[in-house]
């Protein structure tokens, strides 16, 4: 029997949501954004530790020392690449949150249609208009968050 590389299979199914409709896209985006946000979260905790002088500090440091380390960190991180990354992250966070609400509700059986006798042409009752609406609202929110943060970091839209 033909054997496929499990990691290749996984990446293909997770990252290529083609052909199966909108909900498959939501699945892939939710997964990608989840991993990305968790990675950012770990880095963010490491980075904000600089407000007390760094992760290695275990006692109360002097105010001036903490202030100096923090100011250097802020200067080091204020470059366009980091800002662009944060803007993409804003997109992912807002999508993940809003779409997560949809998944939260559907996993608890809310926003779903009722089981019925299937009649051709079939429309899955598990995919309701309300859910599609939440999905597209998630995309809209995410784009809005992206534009908002781009504006904050690069002042491209409004002064």
């Amino acid at each position: 029997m033909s054997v496929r590389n499990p990691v290749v299979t996984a990446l293909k199914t997770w990252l290529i949501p083609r052909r199966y409709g909108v909900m498959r896209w939501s699945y892939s985006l939710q997964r990608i954004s989840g991993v990305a946000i968790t990675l950012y979260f770990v880095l963010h905790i490491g980075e904000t530790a600089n407000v007390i002088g760094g992760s290695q500090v275990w006692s109360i440091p002097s105010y001036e020392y903490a202030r100096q380390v923090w100011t250097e960190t802020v200067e080091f991180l204020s470059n366009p690449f980091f800002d662009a990354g944060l803007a993409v992250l804003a997109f992912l966070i807002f999508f993940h949150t809003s779409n997560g609400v949809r998944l939260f509700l559907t996993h608890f059986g809310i926003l779903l249609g009722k089981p019925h006798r299937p009649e051709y042409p079939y429309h899955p009752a598990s995919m309701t208009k309300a859910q599609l609406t939440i999905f597209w609202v998630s995309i809209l929110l995410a784009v809005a968050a992206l534009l908002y943060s781009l504006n904050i970091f690069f002042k491209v839209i409004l002064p």
Partner: protein
Amino acid sequence: MSGKLQEVRLRVYRYDPSNGGRPRYDIFSVPVKKDTTVLSALLYVKEKLDPTLSIRFSCRMATCGSCGMMINGLPRLACYTLVSQLKSKTITVQPLNNFPVVKDLVADFTDFFGKHRAMKPYLLRIDTYEQEKSNISYRQTDEELLKYIQFAYCIRCGLCYAACPVVATDKRFPGPQALSQLYRYYIDSRDEGGGERLEVVSDSHGVLRCHFAGSCSQVCPKGVDPALAIQLLRRELLFGRRTG
């Protein structure tokens, strides 16, 4: 309905374990009419062009669930898919995803049926004697019937199993077919399995691994909507009758 003959290129996945085991694609030119199905195009190949082609089919009317395969990248029943509806000059036919391949387009359903069997797809009664006494009938109202009848339309063709992104990597995940059948019996008013049924799928590779990508319901040829059954099953596991 005859219409004029048109040529279509059929790109068929070929795999023979006794022959080195390297998959390859063969291309056949097949004349088709407006109402030619992918299955009849494949049978034309088998009859006229290459008799070694292996396919599985039986009823030709989407009732038996034997001829599921990937047609242009989507799991579909070959007998239920018209060549003309695909709107492409080249049609790629592969065995179902997420199944081991036996030969050519024939997939191995051992795991699939094993998972279905693990769900105990039959009515469980506390009093087994009563079940064996043939003069007893179980009464059911229309409302009770409506709760599960949709999921009872399943023909076990494996299309949902091939579409599911969780099954693709998690070999222990029961898959949309088995889970929807579990719900179909769980919610049946005549069934007394209750929490015992849920226990089978309450572990870390059970119903909770469904992420509701909805692909199963997208491809189901009978309108069974496995994704709906799975969400309702999950609700039962999270809030319903106690397990264990």
